[in-house]
């Protein structure tokens, strides 16, 4: 680079080709003039070429920015003493500081010093902090520069695809002249865009295409770079396991599949500190006790959690039952006097004990009550626990008794406990109606404390009372059914009698009807000429109650009508009295009326 620069400069320095106008030396021969002209022509052509080359070069510089040699990947090994302490690369254009002889890249020291002292190439040596500056001949020896420039590096376009490995000193020339992946101007001079050197002969590639994989639109010239560097569907090599993966999947590959990633042992929560590559994890897991235990312990933990929640539920239930039980005991003991009050003070202590113990004592208490079958279980139990101190129980009893008789409720229901009437869940074996029964029955138990003597416990007392009530009920219902039966029998008998009477009366009436018939027919035969008058006479006689001839007939008819009314009344009685009489009575009545109508 520096060589070409210097040659360009020297070729520019001679006078420009416009020297034709300068006066030619007069009197010279034609041959020399021709020679001069040829020389000028040559000179002009050389200048044109030179200019063309320079503009080309300037354009190339624009298209390909100068290579920063400190950012190169080195292929050959280099001595640590050749490394610049600032950029940690093999020195690039090394310079020596005056006075301390520390060596840095020219660019590194320039950047360091312009950053912090804008006055010029002057400042403290970064290594030894001595004030230093660049001398007039700061460059190190040519030998060192040659060694450094002979180091082999990868082409800076290697990630774009250039596989060249070149000496560091030739990198800039490689990019400006040879590298197929460096940019040059498009062959189509009207296009004005750049294209990679290797694609230069393909003509203008600046028309839009779309990527087959990701459907993105771009100029054809950029498609290859896109495939290699940008397309999310391109294949890349995993840095760790060097398998080919799609760029889009690389995060997932890292997390899930890459066999070279270090993953912790599955037994890590249990304390296994092992971390091995995914590929070797199986081997470790086979030997790791903690990894094998993992699932078992997990299952156990889950079961324990389940059981714990179940246990909590049961505890809660037990608490409810317990409060219900103690509240019930309160009610019962509140309605007892004397010795049972001692028992209530006993139950006051129960909740303060541990739950298991309290339930145990409660159950034993009931059991002992069953055994002894006598109403003083608490004191009995107290003496069983402390057989040596009956006097103390006596004194407590005597001290509590007067207060109990005065205010039984206030003593037996401490503020901690719910009021006995308060709604609380009860044990299922004691339904709520029992309490109302008990409340109704409570006056008896308080007025006659000796009455519940035979009962071993309040519960038993309640149950027995319930039982006796049920017996009473049964007795009452039996009496009721008996009464009912007797009553219905009575009605039946009455009915039968009435029916018989009606039948008898019916017979009588029929006989009388026949007599009347006979009498009327005899009368008619007797006075045939004034039959109609006689008939009329019969009618008026019936209404007026007079008539000598038909006097007997009239009496008979009267008797008949009274009999009929009597019959009708009897029938009504039968109708009301019993069902058995009703089917017969209408017929009978009809018979009577028909008879009456035929008579009339």
């Amino acid at each position, binding site marked *: 680079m520096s060589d070409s620069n210097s040659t360009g400069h020297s070729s520019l320095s001679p006078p420009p080709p416009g020297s034709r106008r300068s006066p030619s030396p007069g009197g010279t021969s034609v041959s020399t003039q021709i020679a001069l002209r040829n020389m000028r022509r040559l000179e002009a052509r050389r200048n044109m070429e030179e200019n063309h080359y320079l503009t080309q070069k300037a354009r190339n510089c624009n298209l390909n920015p100068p290579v*920063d040699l400190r*950012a190169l990947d080195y292929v050959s090994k280099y001595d640590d003493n050749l490394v610049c302490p*600032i*950029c940690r*690369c093999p020195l690039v254009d090394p310079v020596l500081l005056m006075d301390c002889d520390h060596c840095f890249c020219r660019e590194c020291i320039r*950047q*360091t010093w312009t*950053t912090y002292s804008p006055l010029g190439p002057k400042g403290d040596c*970064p290594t030894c902090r001595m004030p230093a500056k660049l001398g007039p001949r700061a460059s190190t020896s040519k030998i060192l520069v040659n060694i450094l420039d002979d180091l082999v590096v990868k082409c800076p376009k290697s990630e774009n695809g250039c596989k060249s490995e070149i000496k560091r000193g030739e990198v800039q020339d490689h990019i400006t002249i040879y590298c197929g992946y460096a940019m040059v101007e498009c062959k189509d001079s009207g296009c004005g865009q750049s294209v990679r050197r290797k694609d230069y002969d393909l003509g203008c590639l600046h028309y839009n295409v779309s990527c087959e994989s990701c459907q993105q639109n771009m100029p054809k010239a950029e498609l290859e770079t896109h495939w290699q560097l940008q397309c999310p569907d391109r294949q890349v090599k995993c840095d760790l396991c060097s398998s080919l993966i799609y760029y889009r999947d690389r995060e997932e590959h890292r997390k899930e599949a890459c066999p070279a990633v270090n993953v912790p042992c599955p037994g890590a929560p249990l304390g296994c500190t092992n971390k091995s590559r995914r590929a070797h994890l199986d081997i470790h897991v086979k030997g790791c006790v903690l990894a094998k235990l993992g699932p078992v312990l997990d299952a156990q933990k889950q079961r324990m959690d389940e059981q714990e929640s179940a246990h909590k539920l049961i505890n809660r239930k037990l608490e409810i039952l317990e409060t219900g039980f103690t509240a019930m005991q309160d009610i019962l003991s509140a309605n007892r006097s004397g010795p049972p009050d001692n028992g209530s003070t006993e139950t006051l202590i129960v909740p303060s004990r541990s739950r298991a113990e309290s339930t145990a004592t409660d159950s034993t208490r009931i059991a002992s009550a069953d055994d002894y079958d006598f109403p003083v279980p608490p004191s009995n139990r107290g003496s069983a626990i402390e057989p040596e101190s009956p006097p103390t129980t006596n004194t407590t009893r005597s001290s509590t008794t007067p207060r109990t008789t005065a205010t039984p409720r206030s003593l037996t229901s401490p503020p901690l406990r719910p009021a006995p009437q308060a709604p609380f869940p009860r044990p299922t074996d004691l339904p709520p109606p029992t309490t109302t029964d008990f409340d109704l029955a409570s006056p008896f138990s308080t007025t006659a404390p000796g009455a519940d003597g035979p009962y071993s416990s309040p519960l038993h007392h309640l149950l027995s009372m319930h039982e006796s009530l049920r017996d009473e009920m049964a007795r009452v219902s039996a009496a009721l059914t008996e009464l009912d039966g007797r009553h219905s029998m009575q009605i039946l008998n009455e009915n039968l009698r009435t029916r018989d009477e009606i039948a008898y009366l019916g017979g009588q009436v029929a006989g009388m009807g026949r007599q009347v018939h006979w009498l009327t027919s005899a009368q008619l035969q007797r006075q045939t000429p004034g039959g109609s008058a006689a008939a009329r006479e019969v009618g008026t006689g019936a209404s007026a109650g007079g008539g000598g001839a038909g006097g007997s007939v009239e009496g008979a008819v009267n008797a008949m009508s009274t009999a009929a009314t009597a019959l009708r009344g009897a029938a009504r009685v039968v109708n009301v009295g019993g069902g058995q009489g009703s089917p017969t009575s209408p017929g009978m009545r009809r018979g009577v009326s028909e008879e009456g109508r035929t008579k009339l």
Partner: protein
Amino acid sequence: MAGMSSKRLQKELVKIQGTLPPGISLVSAPDLKEWQMDISVLDNPLYPPADKYRLRFTFSPSYPIEAPEVVFLAAPDRNIPMHPHIYSNGIICLDLLDSQGWSPVHNVESVCISIQSMLASNTKAERPPGDKEFVRSNRQRPRDINFLYHDPTV
């Protein structure tokens, strides 16, 4: 420029992932912008060797020409060490990290060693004067603060 910076950080990272002096360890380096290191002090009763302190390095694109920002981080198991030049918000008053004191020949490892030795030579378990006021009022980046190095012995 950016090329030089990332190239150098890559090289440092490779070296740090290899070997480090005792008491210094790399915690995380997810990218070339922010790294976290743990340091512990080996021979000072003020700082038990079991206690670790978390350092956060933040690199600008002009590293190593420009100094990295280095502060102590507080975490559930990491405290800010007591030191007359370390504020309770983790900002370190060390000339090495100042724009005047920084030199591009330093690197992450050498900064860690400097901080480690700064702790190791300390004898006073106290905060800098005006710590509370500073912690409450300071909104500047550490590198922009002009510390007065009043005590060159520490």
